């Protein structure tokens, strides 16, 4: 059994929907990347280096080319290049979604979304990357051991979003104790006695690994797709990683047989536009990454 047959397990599309799905994902991906630069750099307006201004302008033009469609492959090559520059310029502190965006963009640049065999391989590759990211997100939480007794959630209470969301799940005295802890040697224990929260903590890593597995068989794919999107939406309450959330949910929807993703383009674009308007101060401030 070769690698090709492993990838073939990820097939499963209604006839004639592959191109439509890929185009929808291309547009969402390009808009996410563009919005990332706009929301990040608008906040630092007046404090940008020449290279950052060039990257900002380049990403805007390249995203427009992807949306237009005619020059999408060279545009994706450009987006992969800009994301590589970004990762390099912030090395080693660039967020993982930048690497993922570079990988997605590279796939779109290297494979023709209209050519039969390349189109099939392109869709398989994108789905495969979703599985890898989802599975390892769970595995990393398991192997480092900070989610087994809720240690990570206890530690993360120093963050506003986590504090607000998790307070109802903790007894008041435990919440007070955990939020008063520091990061000096001897501080702790960052352990949670609340059973619902410990269960939630373990459900997160387990869900990520199991859902990655359930995305493969066609029989469980639709359920896994919906559940993964629900998991992403739930984690947004805590993490507010809006760009990664939109992008990864869109990538997950590539697994659906139908081209439902096409109907998500306008809502995703509207949400991303709203985030830019937040940064411009036109919409009220909400914290997001």
């Amino acid at each position, binding site marked *: 059994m070769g*690698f090709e047959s492993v990838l073939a397990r990820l097939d499963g599309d209604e006839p004639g929907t592959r191109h439509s799905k890929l185009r929808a994902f291309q547009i969402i991906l390009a808009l996410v990347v563009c919005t990332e630069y706009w929301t990040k750099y608008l906040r630092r307006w007046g404090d940008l280096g020449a290279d950052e201004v060039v990257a900002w302008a380049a990403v805007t033009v390249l995203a427009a080319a992807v949306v237009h469609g005619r020059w999408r492959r060279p545009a994706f090559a450009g987006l992969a290049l800009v994301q590589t520059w970004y990762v390099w310029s912030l*090395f080693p*502190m660039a967020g993982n979604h930048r690497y993922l965006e570079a990988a997605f963009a590279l796939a779109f640049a290297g494979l023709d979304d209209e050519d039969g065999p390349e189109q099939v*391989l392109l869709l398989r590759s994108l789905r495969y990357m979703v599985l890898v990211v989802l599975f390892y997100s769970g595995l990393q939480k398991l192997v480092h051991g900070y989610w087994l007794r809720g240690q990570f959630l206890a530690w993360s209470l120093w963050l506003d979003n986590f504090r607000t969301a998790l307070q109802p799940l903790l007894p008041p005295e435990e919440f007070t104790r955990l939020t008063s802890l520091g990061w000096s040697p001897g501080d702790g224990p960052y352990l949670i006695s609340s059973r619902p929260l410990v269960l939630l903590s373990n459900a997160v890593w387990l869900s990520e690994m199991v859902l990655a597995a359930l995305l493969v068989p066609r029989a469980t794919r639709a359920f896994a797709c919906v559940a993964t999107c629900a998991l992403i939406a739930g984690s947004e309450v805590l993490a507010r990683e809006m760009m990664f959330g939109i992008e990864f949910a869109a990538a997950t929807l590539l697994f659906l047989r139908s081209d439902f993703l096409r109907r998500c383009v306008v809502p995703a674009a509207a949400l991303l536009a709203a985030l830019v308007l937040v940064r411009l101060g036109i919409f009220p401030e909400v914290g997001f990454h």
Partner: protein
Amino acid sequence: MSALRRSVVHAGLIVFALWPAVHIGLVKTWGVNPWKLAGWGMYSAPQIPAELRISCFTPDEVGVYPLRVLAPELEATRHAFLRARLGLGSLARPTGLARALLDHYPAIDGVSIEVAQPVLNPRTGVIAERTTTYEYRR
């Protein structure tokens, strides 16, 4: 589609799946940040920045003294090291900072840089400190 193109894509996808396993090894062995470097370990462990304790060696009878206040010109170098350390763990060594210190303070003949890394022990849930000391001589 050419066989070469197909093979390149396959190779890329295999590396894409193997790298996070290597990354877990880097996290376990050298304290690389699981949030960074495409290991997909976001939110899997606390990220706590390290602190530095710097001492200078002198050739006179003083011998060694702690450097309590860093010259403002060296702040960017210190910050760059701490940032690299947060991402790369003990793979990031303070060689550049040591060189900058030796250049800035010509009277000293060596520096000791102690990196104090707070670590949350997952078993006890208590913060511990892991220290590594680097010595550089002129």
